[in-house]
């Protein structure tokens, strides 16, 4: 192998490595994350890709709530002090765009991530 051939090989190899690295960076996903907001501020973030169930106590504007992730990608409100219990009866959230809302507690759970191909959800 000539010296110049070796240089060419190194250049091509470097280029290939660069492309692979940048492809990985570009397609790096944060996974699916649930953001829990109370009165406009993020009070908790939950990685929904984790396989372990988690229970989170949240302090709402009206009183305490309990939010639970099931370790299978879903999150829901299991307890709330609000009168109508709409948040407790909302179907568990799992896909980006899903929301669980508790108006009396000014709490909203928003799912974000790159696991979906929609920009926004109308309901």
């Amino acid at each position, binding site marked *: 192998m000539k010296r*110049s*051939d070796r240089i*060419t090989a190194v*250049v*091509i190899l*470097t*280029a*290939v490595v*660069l*492309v692979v*690295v*940048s*492809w990985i*960076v*570009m397609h790096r996903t944060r996974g699916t994350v649930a*953001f829990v*907001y109370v*009165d*406009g501020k993020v009070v908790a973030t939950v990685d929904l890709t984790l396989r372990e169930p988690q229970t989170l106590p949240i302090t709402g504007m009206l009183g305490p709530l309990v939010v639970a992730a099931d370790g299978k990608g879903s999150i829901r409100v299991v307890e709330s002090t609000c009168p*109508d219990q709409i948040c407790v009866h909302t*179907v*568990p959230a*799992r*896909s980006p*765009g*899903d*929301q669980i*809302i508790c*108006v009396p507690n*000014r709490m*909203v759970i*928003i799912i*974000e991530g790159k696991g*979906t*191909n*929609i*920009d*926004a*959800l*109308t*309901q």
Partner: protein
Amino acid sequence: MRKAIAPIVAVIVVGAGLATFFALRKLPEPVTSTYFLMDTVLTIKTTGGDAAAINEHLHALASNVDSMTSYYNPESETVRVNGAAGKGPVSVSPEYAALLKTAVAVETIDHGRTFDIAISPVSSLWGFMTKDFRVPAAKEISDTLAYSHSDQLVLSDTTVQLRDSQARIDLGGVAKGYSLDVMEEYLKTVKPQPRQVIVDFGGNLLLYSGGRKRDWKIGIRDPRGQGIIGYVRSGDAFVATSGDYERYFERDGKRYCHIIDPSTGYPGTLNQSVTVITDIQPMHGAIGDALGKVFFCSTAETQRLLFQAAQGQGTVGIVIVDAAGTRSTLGPITFVPAAAQ
């Protein structure tokens, strides 16, 4: 040999360099803000521009609309108009008068049979104003319907009058959509322009990119199950959904939703959800919001008949899930159903 490889190497190196540049270039991160307003959530997600400041300003604009239109706030123009019912004309702001005219213009496409801002005394009977839900007697409903119609309303450019002392108006059916109109007017003027803004106001959407984005994917919630029934591909738009699943109560296994059919005084039962997509023009947010109720309280046949008139008011397309769960669309839109579960 070397001569043949040289250009290939050059292309690979330049290509790799470009790919690396685009991958590592710092894309602006979206700023998401949530607010509580009009008994629902306002979520704003802005990418690019002075995102946090834009979100705050959009919230302030929506708050102004709430202060103007609220059914409850004693300072609102709605409360002043309702308070003077049966007494005489009340002077209102030009903005309020214009919004009322827009709402009434939507009513006229179906002669007020499917949407009426003066239906609120009937909504109150059902308990939707106070959340003390009950099923009223048929006589109560027919007695109340007698004065729960927009023919009670006398409009001028500066005054509003309700003839009957028991008549009431409620702009809850257009206020969220109108807020999106006000926000869009502002977004057009912002400098530097954000790359894109997604406003979700209680499920009503404004998708804004200054006309650059042609492939928004708007997911439509499954009215009975989890997730979406599919998505619509669209340019910048206002999107309004009227569904029977957001606010309702159940008695004896029957569902009573908050959208009252003005022709009967009973909650609409013909459809599970209707999504109206309107193009970006002044008042089309408010119009789309109101048209959602029109189509929600219409049969499939009436929907087809009304669609041309709705197109004349800026409607691009409509996605309907009827009472049996059957999905259909009106207009030249691309609806992509979610993959069968």
